[in-house]
């Protein structure tokens, strides 16, 4: 974490976001409550003023215009802290109730109006017009209590919102820390894993998202390790395969130079070295073919497999004849597959080369092309030495040879079938092998059909 900007960590951002959301929520909630309370309070006051005015008017009416108010009614009004002026039609104050006695009757612009009394206290006044132009009643009430209540609520909100925010921030920091601590653990563990200890895993046991992340990470490491191991083995094999002819060359050259030799001996020694150089050249060539096949995407064109196999088989006939092997091909005309003609030639050349190599005189190699609904199937069957069952699974591995001693006679470098498999995979096909030791082998290749 040290090399991260402290203010830009996920933890800080999580906390800030949660605080912002909490603040907005608290302010909206508190504000809403305050406004609702205010609304309710003022409506009560209005109701009380209207009710009081109506009661006053009713008792004036009941007395037939007599300006006397029954003491009961006065007591009711006083209990509500309501005061009132009864004003006649020429604007003269006929009667006052409660505090109204201490000040003159106000002049109102609206029926409902807020103003200040003589002492500067806020009051609300309500004017109630009496019937038949016989004057009006103005009732008033002090707003001080309501305003104080509202102010107190506001103060409480102003004090509790920051406090709640603070508590929620502490909680958020704690929660973010808890949620993120496995990530820090994973980071620390992942930092320790390099190509030298690729076998280590995070092994983080948890069913949550972080556990998922760690599991994904571990499976990625599995794949990386397998790929690494594969490459390491390949490089090991390559260096071993190159070192064998190199050792031979070095031994031969140093032997040749170790003492004076006549030219006939030297010619003999150098031609032996030539064979080793050829072997190294073949090996390097095969490796490059394999790497190219695996690495480069191919541009597919319609390849006529029938033509391709016909050409190959007739090219190899002389070699087969020389080894007294019958080489036969069965194919319907113009079967087309999407592919790279050079790679496909290489594929079948490798298979036929193997079939011829491992067959003895009098043997047979049959190539058969058949077409299914979706794909075509090419079989290469020989009557050669065959492959032991336990070796079939490794047959397509790089540098694998069923019998190491055979190499020296056949000159193979152990990459032919790896190249074949790589080519088949590039063509979205499959390759299979069946074999019986002493009876022969059967290679089957499935390739997609070309559709226009």
């Amino acid at each position, binding site marked *: 974490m040290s090399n991260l900007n402290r203010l830009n960590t996920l933890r800080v951002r999580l906390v800030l976001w949660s605080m912002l959301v909490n603040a907005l929520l608290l302010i909206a909630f508190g504000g809403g409550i305050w406004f609702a309370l205010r609304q309710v309070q003022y409506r009560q006051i209005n109701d009380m003023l209207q009710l009081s005015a109506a009661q006053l008017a009713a008792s004036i009416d009941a007395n037939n215009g007599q300006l006397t108010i029954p003491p009961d009614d006065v007591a009711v009004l006083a209990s509500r802290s309501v005061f009132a002026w009864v004003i006649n039609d020429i604007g003269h104050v006929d009667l006052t109730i409660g505090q109204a006695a201490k000040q003159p009757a106000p002049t109102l612009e609206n029926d409902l109006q807020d103003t200040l009394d003589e002492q500067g206290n806020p009051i609300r006044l309500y004017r109630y017009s009496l019937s038949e132009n016989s004057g009006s009643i103005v009732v008033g009430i002090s707003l001080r209590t309501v305003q104080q209540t509202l102010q107190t609520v506001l103060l409480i909100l102003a004090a509790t919102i920051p406090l709640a925010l603070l508590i929620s921030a502490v909680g958020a920091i704690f929660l973010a820390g808890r949620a993120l601590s496995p990530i820090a653990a994973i980071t620390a563990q992942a930092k320790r894993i390099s190509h030298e200890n690729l076998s280590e895993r995070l092994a983080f046991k948890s069913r949550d998202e972080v556990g998922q992340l760690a599991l994904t990470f571990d499976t990625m490491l599995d794949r990386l390790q397998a790929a690494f191991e594969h490459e390491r083995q390949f490089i090991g094999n390559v260096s*071993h395969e190159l*070192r*064998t002819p*190199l*050792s*031979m*060359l*070095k*031994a*031969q*050259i*140093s*032997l040749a130079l*170790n*003492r004076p030799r006549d030219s006939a001996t030297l010619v003999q020694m150098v031609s*032996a070295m030539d064979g080793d150089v050829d072997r190294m050249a073949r090996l390097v060539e095969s490796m490059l073919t394999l790497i190219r096949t695996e690495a480069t995407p191919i541009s597919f064109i319609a390849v006529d497999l029938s033509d391709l196999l016909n050409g190959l088989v007739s090219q190899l006939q002389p070699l087969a004849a020389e080894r007294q092997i019958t080489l036969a091909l069965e194919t319907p005309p113009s079967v087309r597959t999407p592919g790279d003609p050079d790679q496909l030639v290489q594929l079948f050349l490798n298979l036929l080369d193997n079939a011829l190599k491992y067959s003895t005189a009098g043997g047979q190699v049959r190539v058969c092309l058949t077409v299914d609904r979706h794909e075509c199937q090419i079989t290469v069957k020989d009557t050669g030495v065959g492959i032991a069952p336990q070796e079939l699974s490794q047959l397509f591995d790089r540098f694998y040879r069923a019998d190491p001693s055979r190499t020296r006679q056949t000159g193979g470098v152990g990459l032919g079938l790896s190249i074949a498999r790589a080519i088949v995979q590039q063509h979205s096909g499959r390759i299979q092998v069946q074999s019986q030791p002493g009876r022969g082998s059967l290679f089957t290749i499935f390739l997609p059909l070309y559709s226009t």
Partner: protein
Amino acid sequence: MRVLVVEDEARMAALIRQGLEEEAYAVDVVGNGREALNWLQSVDYDLLILDLMLPSIDGLGVCREYRENGGRVPILMLTARNTLSERVIGLDSGADDYLGKPFGMPELLARLRALSRREGPSKTSVLRVHDLSLDTTTKRATRSGQSIELTATEYALLELLMRHAGQILSRDQIINHVWNADFESGSKLIEVYIHYLRRKIDSEHATKLIHTVRGFGYRINGDE
């Protein structure tokens, strides 16, 4: 000096054999570990060259088994897997020296000379008896400052006698260390080569160095 070469790659074995024979070693070649152990039991070798990767029993296995059975012949191990841990394992299993492939013939020969020096009483590459000296590096003999030309077999025979100066060596011992398994026993080859050596070394000098011990064999020394 008789050497057993244990190497499964026939061409490599043939090259080593040629290189050693040209330096007057008697060489036998076998291709697997089991055979190597059999040969080591029946023949008294001076040196063993052992490839690490072998069929049947590998080089390390041969090394261990041979040493556990009390075998004392110096072992030079050859291998294509030339890593530090491999070398350590090789040396720990009883090999005396380790040579990685690819190697040059001169280095192989120099290491073999070093191994045989380690066994003998002399730490130099020059053997001396009286006024006769034999340089095992250049394969040249000199007596009283006079240089003597030797053929490969003559050299091998003289080297054997001088390494055991003062001791009587039997015909069998001589056959064992100078000729390889292809030698036909019963032939007069030893007498012939002793005769050649005497002509080159002793004929012009009053002090005779090569002695025939009747009924036993031959001996070289200068104090009689």
